[in-house]
């Protein structure tokens, strides 16, 4: 049955609909692979085999009765552990939530379940999605399936590693500053951060609410479009949800970029970019050019200010969002304390990891009286300018092309010591969150260590279809090449 694992999610889904494979057999294949690789990779925090088989049996019965016809029905999926799943442990890879069992399911996950998805388990991540390597997890690191001495990226490192190691057929991740796109690049999978407001945040444990967005992590572009089609939609339970005109993203799977205008920001391919990454990115641009796209370089304003603005805004929102963890209603409570106030303080100090505390403190500071204007409002004004810079770029181009990260996957243990150095690795992804844009990372080559390189394509808000069409065309051309 191991041949099953080579199928994409849609290929498997159509085999299941054609009664050539059952949802149970698909799950058997996934668990056999997990038994083989998970000990080394550690992509998952929680796996509930019993619940997965129960779900697979229910789904299979409905398929046989003709009640479930979704192209993803019966296909095993992995969910990042910051999305609530009713009755299934949801930890955010944090000690403070080590025993949290949600009484409800996140909207994006509920939509997958309605489409007949079978949840394999919950994937490892940087604690509260704060990190770029999955090393800040309270439950141990995840290793890159391509080379286990290297990180998978983060914060959705577990989801991306699970897809890359065939320990599921696709996964959900979340992206606040690149947390889907950067690990997708490091793990050689396809990841998309949709336009802000496209996928409901209901049930997603908040980090930076104005930036957070759930998205698909898949084996190819067709799967990505199909998953997005299922999880997207207006949701009144999310006050920033946007009612869009259409959600038929798979209609954009067209092999055609003729006349499409693609801009490459000089700032994204200049100093600080690894040479092998640069070569692979520019080669990807050449492929699109050969298919009829117009490719040119341009100057994107304000790139140097993106990271400082992001960290002020994200940490400010985090300090507010994470105030709910107080040791009263759920999660960890300290053992010894005197009085209520100390109970809060000790529970939080013992329950949160170092990076989370660092960000909560920075956030509390920039929001504090006397510093609010100088830091928080300054960052929001900078965000407005960054948005303007992208508006100007998209007045000229359909797509912006660049790397998803300045390097390939770092060695384990190399990047946590200096926070600024670590944050600088997010330079290519963060602006997309600040401006609310959709962005995708897809594989475009390998470095000399056998580690994947990802190219990132970015479109204007609500232009996912353009993005999918460009990425799909690139993918088809590469297939022909090979």
């Amino acid at each position, binding site marked *: 049955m191991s041949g099953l694992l080579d199928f994409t999610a849609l290929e498997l889904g159509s085999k299941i609909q054609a009664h050539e494979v059952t949802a149970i057999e698909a799950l058997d294949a996934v668990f056999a692979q997990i038994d083989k690789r998970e000990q080394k990779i550690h992509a998952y925090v929680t796996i509930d085999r019993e619940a997965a088989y129960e779900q697979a049996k229910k789904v299979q019965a409905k398929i046989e009765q003709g009640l479930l016809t979704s192209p993803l029905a019966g296909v095993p999926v992995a969910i990042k552990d910051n999305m609530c799943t009713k009755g299934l442990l949801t930890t955010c890879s944090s000690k403070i939530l080590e*025993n*949290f*069992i949600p*009484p*409800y399911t996140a909207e994006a996950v509920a939509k997958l379940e309605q489409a007949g998805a079978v949840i394999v388990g919950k994937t490892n991540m940087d604690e509260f999605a704060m990190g770029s390597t999955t090393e800040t997890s309270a439950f141990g690191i995840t290793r890159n399936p391509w080379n286990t001495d290297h990180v998978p990226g983060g914060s959705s490192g577990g989801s991306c590693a699970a897809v890359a190691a065939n320990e599921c057929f696709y996964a959900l991740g979340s992206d606040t500053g690149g947390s889907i796109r950067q690990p997708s690049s490091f793990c050689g999978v396809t990841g998309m951060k949709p336009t*802000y407001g496209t996928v409901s945040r209901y049930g997603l444990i908040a980090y930076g609410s*104005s930036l957070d967005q759930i998205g698909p992590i898949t084996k190819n572009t067709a799967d990505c479009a199909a998953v997005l089609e299922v999880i997207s939609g207006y949701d*009144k339970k999310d*006050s*920033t949800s*946007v009612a869009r005109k259409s959600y038929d993203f798979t209609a954009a799977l067209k092999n055609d970029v003729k006349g499409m205008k693609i801009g490459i920001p000089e700032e994204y391919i200049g100093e600080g970019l690894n040479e092998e990454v640069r070569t692979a990115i520019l080669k990807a641009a050449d492929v699109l050019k050969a298919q009829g796209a117009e490719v040119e370089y341009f100057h994107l304003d*304000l790139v*140097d*200010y993106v*990271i*400082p603005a992001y*960290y*002020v805004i994200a940490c400010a929102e985090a*300090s507010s969002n994470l*105030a709910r963890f*107080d*040791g*009263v*209603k*759920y*999660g*960890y*409570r300290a053992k010894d*304390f*005197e*009085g*209520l106030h*100390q*109970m*809060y*303080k000790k529970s*939080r*100090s013992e329950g*949160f990891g*170092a990076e989370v*505390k*660092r960000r*909560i*403190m*920075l956030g*509390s*500071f920039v929001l*504090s009286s006397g510093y609010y204007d100088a830091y928080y409002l*300054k*960052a*929001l*004004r*900078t*965000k*407005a*300018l960054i*948005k303007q810079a992208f508006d100007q770029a998209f007045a000229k181009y359909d797509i912006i092309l660049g790397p998803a990260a300045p390097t390939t996957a770092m060695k384990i243990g190399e990047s946590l010591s200096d*926070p600024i150095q670590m944050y600088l690795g997010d330079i290519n992804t963060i602006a997309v969150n600040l401006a*609310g844009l959709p962005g995708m990372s897809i594989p475009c080559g390998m470095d000399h260590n056998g580690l994947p390189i990802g190219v990132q394509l970015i479109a204007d*808000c609500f232009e996912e279809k353009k993005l999918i069409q460009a990425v799909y065309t690139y993918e088809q051309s590469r297939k022909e090449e090979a």
Partner: protein
Amino acid sequence: MIDNEMMEYIGILAKLELSEEEKDQAKADMQKMLNYIDQLNELDTSNVEPMSHIFPVTNVFREDVVTNGDEREAMLMNAPKQKNGQYQVAKTI
């Protein structure tokens, strides 16, 4: 700029209590981050409105009707301590 007194104050705001060792590290990290963030002062933003949302947002209203079921047991199950169907905390008065 970030001295011990400021770190104490941030600890109160953030409801975090750091060990002496953690405090020194946090102070150094915070100073480093703020020096880096100070780059933003190179930008003239005097005529720019702060942008909190990318798209225009309006309040979402609905009738005050309960739509989910009674999840009391499931909610309380997650509480570190509970008594008589309620959350239990340290004595405050």
